[in-house]
């Protein structure tokens, strides 16, 4: 600019004006302290308007609270008609300005259109605050030379002053705000604290009365309160407890002190509180009892710990029972582990929840492999799975489990896929909302095998008893028949049902039934062997035949009778044969007697004398009756009749006697010679033994039969044998032997020899041996040998005697074999 004198005075005036304005500005700023920002702005704007004769001045203040900026606008009088308009519509102004100028005032063009209309105005934006953080000022004038340097200066200074003022105002207002906030907070805190203290007092009061030992600790862990319960329990005094943080620990068991200390301090220092169990001494009996000690931190609103509050509860009994429970559980576990049965538990989902050692052994899954797996997929065979699932579901729905709580035989699956028989019991237990199913499984493969073997052997036995060709039966210890084989049923014609119990009585002859029952009852009661001969009814021909039943008891190792086992044998034929033999023997014995002298003559004599006596007596009386006065013809006739009868009797006797000695045989049958000899021997054996004579036979097997009268032939053998025994009986040297031989001769005939070691036949008697009435025996009649010869010759044979070497006699007879 160019400087002239007139201009200089103007310039000086302008500068003076400028300095005055500046001073005013500085003065303004002094006024601003303590006032709100808006006051500052107002003052500033007014001052600027006046000073610089602006047409427009706009301020926008940023709002620290994030709200919309404060916008103030002032228009000069010339611009605005009314005061209101002077200050009005800052926002629109701002908007307008912004519209024209963009948001960043520093980029606004120096010249813009007047928002209120009129000519364009030149504007000068200025920042408030170093970075415009406070806001912006926009001064505007219609003057073309706006802004001049001095104006620029003034605006800058004003802006700076405003900035400073505003900042100061802000700070002040902030300080005020903070101060009031602090006041509010302190008040609140004080209220809270008072409340907390009140609560604490209440709590402490409560603590004093609750029936457990209770205490509070300061945040540093030092006990500041312990209730009466504690003091009485431990016997400690309050002052003592409060004297030191760890004073109360003397009430704890020495062994637990370390743990206690650790838990305690750890909880206190971390502020988390603590929970531990320790033994405390009960002062009144000195007992150490387990206590549960718990402490929690009591915090204020800021989260700071006010106190620790805690309790000590005597849990000794609980611990004891816990211990007991634990021990019981341990025992149970042990039992389950060592049980011989596999114990497997399953939950409602069918998953395995426990698996003992035996389960591992039986099934082949380890516990790790089995637990948590579905039971149906591990140990249940495929074909049972559906019914298992169904059964489980059914039970869960209805509570019914037909196979539960009982022993069932079923098969199970081993890990390797083999199925095996098991005995299973499943027991359901309610646990919480669900169920636990305990399964006890026993591998019965061995038992099944044994059962099978037994069945087999029983089958064998049954087959045997059914096919043995004898009648077998068995009875229960009380005598009731419970089994008989097919032979019995065939023989008696009774059915199995009919025979059982006492039905067997039906087969016994009525006359033998009572004795049979008695004998059986006796055996059953005494345990003695049963033996009974009876007549039994044979169904095939309806005849009674002689049978014999025997039975023996089967006893247990203790001696109790378990069963009776018996047989029935039809021995009718044998018995008959025995009876026939007895009869034959009796007859033979009789005949033998008859063969001896006295008996024979007595027999004959007696038999004949009877009729003779009648004849003679009746003859006498007959003639007497006829000689009677008068003759009694009736009586005579009767006598005569008696004579005839008696005479007939006598002749019959004679005939019989003759027949005994007749050459023709009376009964011709096939006689087994060896059999006849043996039967005879049995008769004379006793006699031989009595005389200490050895009796031997050498019978050739297969000797042919002969035709004849068995009794007569036996007579002959008997006679010869008796002769031999009698001759040997007298000896006083050895051997004392009689030997009977039978052989088949070359010509196919039967040769029988009876030899003895006796004195032998005297030479001078040898030719009269077979003559009647010849005997060397004092008692003999001498009829034996002749009769024997007579019998043998009647059979078509020969009888002769010979010498035995070195000593004795031999009598031979030969008979022709029977021709068919």
């Amino acid at each position: 600019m160019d400087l002239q004198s007139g201009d200089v005075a103007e310039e000086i005036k302008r500068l003076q004006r400028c300095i005055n304005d500046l001073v005013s500005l500085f003065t303004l700023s002094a006024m601003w302290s303590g006032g709100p920002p808006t006051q500052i702005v107002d003052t500033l704007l007014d001052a600027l308007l006046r000073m610089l004769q602006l047409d427009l001045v706009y301020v926008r203040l940023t709002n620290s609270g994030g709200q919309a900026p404060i916008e103030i606008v002032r228009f000069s009088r010339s611009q605005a008609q009314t005061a209101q308009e002077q200050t009005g519509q800052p926002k629109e102004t701002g908007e307008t300005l912004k519209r024209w100028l963009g948001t960043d005032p520093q980029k606004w063009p120096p010249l813009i259109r007047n928002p209120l209309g009129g000519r364009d105005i030149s504007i000068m934006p200025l920042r408030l605050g170093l970075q415009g953080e406070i806001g912006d000022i926009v001064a505007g004038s219609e003057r073309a030379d706006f802004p001049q340097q001095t104006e620029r200066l003034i605006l800058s200074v004003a802006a700076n002053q405003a900035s400073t003022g505003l900042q100061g105002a802000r700070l002040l207002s902030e300080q005020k705000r903070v101060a009031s906030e602090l006041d509010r907070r302190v008040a609140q805190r004080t209220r809270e604290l008072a409340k907390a203290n009140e609560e604490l007092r209440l709590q402490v009061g409560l603590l004093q009365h609750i029936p457990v030992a209770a205490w509070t600790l300061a945040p540093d862990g030092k006990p500041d309160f312990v209730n009466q319960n504690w003091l009485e329990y431990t016997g400690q005094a309050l002052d003592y407890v409060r004297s030191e943080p760890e004073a109360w620990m003397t009430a704890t068991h020495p062994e637990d002190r370390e743990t206690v200390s650790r838990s305690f301090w750890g909880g206190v220092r971390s502020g988390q509180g603590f929970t531990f169990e320790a033994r405390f001494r009960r002062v009144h009996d000195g007992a150490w009892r387990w206590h549960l000690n718990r402490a929690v931190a009591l915090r204020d609103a800021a989260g700071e710990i006010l106190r620790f509050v805690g309790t000590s509860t005597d849990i000794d009994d609980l611990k004891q029972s816990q211990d007991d429970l634990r021990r019981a559980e341990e025992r149970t576990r042990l039992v389950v582990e060592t049980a011989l049965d596999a114990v497997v538990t399953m939950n409602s989902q069918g998953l395995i929840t426990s698996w003992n050692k035996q389960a591992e052994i039986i099934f082949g899954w380890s516990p790790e492999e089995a637990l948590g797996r579905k039971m149906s997929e591990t140990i249940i065979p495929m074909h049972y799975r559906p019914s298992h699932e169904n059964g489980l579901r059914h039970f869960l729905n209805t509570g019914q489990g037909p196979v539960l709580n009982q022993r069932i035989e079923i098969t199970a699956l081993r890990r390797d896929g083999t199925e095996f028989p098991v005995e299973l019991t499943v027991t359901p237990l309610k646990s919480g909302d669900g169920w636990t199913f305990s399964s006890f499984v026993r591998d019965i493969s061995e038992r099944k095998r044994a059962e099978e073997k037994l069945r087999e052997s029983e089958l064998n036995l049954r087959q045997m008893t059914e096919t043995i060709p004898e009648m077998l039966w068995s009875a229960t210890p009380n005598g009731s028949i419970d089994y008989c084989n097919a032979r019995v049923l065939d023989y008696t014609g009774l059915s199995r049902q009919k025979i059982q119990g006492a039905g067997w009585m039906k087969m016994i002859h009525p006359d033998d039934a009572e004795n049979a029952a008695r004998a059986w009852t006796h055996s059953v009661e005494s345990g003695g062997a049963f033996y009974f001969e009876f007549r039994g009814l044979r169904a095939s021909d309806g005849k009674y035949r002689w049978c014999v039943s025997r039975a023996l008891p089967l006893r247990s190792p203790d001696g109790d009778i378990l069963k009776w086992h018996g047989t029935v044998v039809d021995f009718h034929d044998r018995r008959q044969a025995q009876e026939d033999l007895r009869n034959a023997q009796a007859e033979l014995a009789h005949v033998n007697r008859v063969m001896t002298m006295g008996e024979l003559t007595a027999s004959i004599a007696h038999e004949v004398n009877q009729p003779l006596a009648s004849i003679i007596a009746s003859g006498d009386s007959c003639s007497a009756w006829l000689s009677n006065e008068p003759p009694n013809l009736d009586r005579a006739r009767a006598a005569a009749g008696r004579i005839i009868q008696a005479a007939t009797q006598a002749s019959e006797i004679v005939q019989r006697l003759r027949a005994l000695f007749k050459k023709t045989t009376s009964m011709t049958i096939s006689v087994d010679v060896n059999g006849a000899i043996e039967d005879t021997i049995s008769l004379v054996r006793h006699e031989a033994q009595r005389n200490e004579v050895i009796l031997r036979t050498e019978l050739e097997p297969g000797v042919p039969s002969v035709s004849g009268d068995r009794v007569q032939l036996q007579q002959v053998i008997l006679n010869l044998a008796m002769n031999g025994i009698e001759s040997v009986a007298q000896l006083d040297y050895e051997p004392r032997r009689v030997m009977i031989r039978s052989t088949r001769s070359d010509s196919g005939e039967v040769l029988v020899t009876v030899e003895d070691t006796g004195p032998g036949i005297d030479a001078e008697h040898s030719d009269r041996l077979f003559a009647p009435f010849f005997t060397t025996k004092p008692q003999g009649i001498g009829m034996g040998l002749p009769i024997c010869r007579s019998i043998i010759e009647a059979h078509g044979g020969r009888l002769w005697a010979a010498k035995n070497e070195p000593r004795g006699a031999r009598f031979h007879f030969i008979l022709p074999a029977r021709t068919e």
Partner: protein
Amino acid sequence: MSDPKSIVFVVDDDPLVRDSVADLLDLAGFTVRTFGSATNFLQSGHPDLPACLILDVELPGLSGLDLQVELTKSGVDMPIVFLTGRGDIPMSVRAMKRGAVEFLTKPFRKQELLEAVEEALLRDRESRNRRAETAELEKRLRTLTPRERQVLALVVTGLLNKQIAGELGTTEETIKVHRGRVMSKMAAGSLAELVQMAGKLKISP
């Protein structure tokens, strides 16, 4: 025959023999009753007459010899005539020893049998008489007092009255009185008679 004087029993199991013998005896005038066995005979009662028994030895069941023993045991004194078809000596000896009248073997002669029966009946009569007599004597004896009995016992031993008195500790006079009473009560005519009576009664001091 009415009012028989005696009776003969015949026991034989052979009817022919039974009838023949009965016929024979009947002819001879005896009253006969026959039995087929010893048991039948024992079971039947018989009248109180002189009787005898013709008895076969060989009887079924109870033999003749057994019957003899039985009868003796029961105190029946009936005389027996044995008949036998056998006739061995030991048997006959036994029978006779046991008191049989006769032992006849069959066939017997009529005369043998009749004589034996006569003998037997005679015996029976005699024993019956004897029994009656003894009964009478016993009756009389019962009338004696105990003292009189004592006196009787001593009298028949031949003691004098004086001696008897001494024995019994009483006087001769008393004894004389007793003796007189005894004599009259017993109806003995003499001492000898009394002695006989005592013997029959088997009285001893």
